[in-house]
């Protein structure tokens, strides 16, 4: 019985609040270190591309942010689903905490994609299958944030947000497979879990390090933000009023 109990202990905001702080600090440190290494490799270690010269270096933030934009959405949908089914408020808070970071990652993917597309394809934007589905992902994030912000009762806001997220999950495989199904303009998958990658190892290593850096960054920001959400939602509780950081 105690094993199960300890797992649920962290579903209470009061128990999770300090834990989120520790995870936040550790992942922030990891993010800074990996970003430094990743950036150094992106500019000084990874060789010049035979075709795109130095311009291809945008890949070192375009791909990690694109991956994160999809991954964060799936994590949000997972937590929203848990919150909907088990009615655990903390899960819904986690989904809410991830939303702005997911939106920023999607924006970065779209922005760096456009800045890479202009010199290589000759256009800032094309209504290509992947670009369009990624843009829809961006609207889903913004829609979720706006929806949550527009409903005062947090419980109803969490439920409405969860439904929106779960409906929008279908967009993620569409983004991922869009390059294969519609084959419009965006490049096919260069890196795949099954067949490895056709990239030079150095370039791939730099990109993977940047991906872990972006992942650690997202975890850190989400953990710090979920602490603020907990403070906001639990502001009338005794445990919050007794927090050392609350000045009397």
């Amino acid at each position: 019985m105690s094993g199960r109990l300890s797992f649920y202990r962290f579903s209470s905001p009061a128990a999770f609040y300090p834990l989120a702080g520790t995870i936040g600090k550790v992942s922030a440190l990891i993010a800074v270190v990996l970003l430094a290494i990743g950036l150094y490799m992106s500019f000084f270690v990874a060789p010049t591309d035979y075709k795109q010269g130095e311009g291809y270096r945008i890949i070192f933030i375009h791909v990690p942010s694109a991956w994160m934009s999809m991954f964060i959405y799936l994590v949000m949908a997972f937590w929203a689903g848990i919150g909907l089914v088990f009615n655990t408020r903390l899960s819904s808070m986690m989904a809410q905490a991830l939303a702005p970071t997911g939106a920023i990652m999607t924006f970065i993917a779209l922005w760096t994609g456009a800045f890479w597309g202009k010199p290589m394809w000759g256009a800032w934007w094309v209504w290509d299958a992947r670009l369009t589905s990624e843009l829809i992902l961006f609207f889903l994030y913004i829609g979720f944030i706006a929806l949550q912000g527009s409903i005062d009762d947090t419980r109803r806001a969490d439920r409405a947000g969860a439904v929106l997220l779960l409906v929008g999950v279908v967009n993620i495989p569409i983004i991922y497979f869009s390059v294969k199904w519609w084959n419009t303009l965006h490049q096919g998958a260069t890196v795949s879990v099954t067949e490895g990658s056709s990239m030079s190892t150095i370039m791939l290593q730099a990109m993977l390090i940047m991906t872990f850096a972006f992942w650690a960054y997202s975890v850190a920001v989400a953990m710090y933000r979920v602490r603020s959400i907990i403070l906001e939602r639990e502001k009338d509780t005794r445990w919050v009023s007794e927090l050392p950081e609350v000045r009397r």
Partner: protein
Amino acid sequence: MKGGISEFFAMGGYALYVWGSFGATALLMIAEPLLVRQRRKAALQRISRLVRIKSEQQS
């Protein structure tokens, strides 16, 4: 090294695109944590005000 630095920033002629990408990303990934920190400060201030009001009502 002098040639190296300006040559480095030229990015083989792709300067606008590479630094436009990395610059915007850096801006966002610095601004977001600052906004989160500000949100925390605001939450804490609101709570300490609530605590003060409650203690005044009791006394």
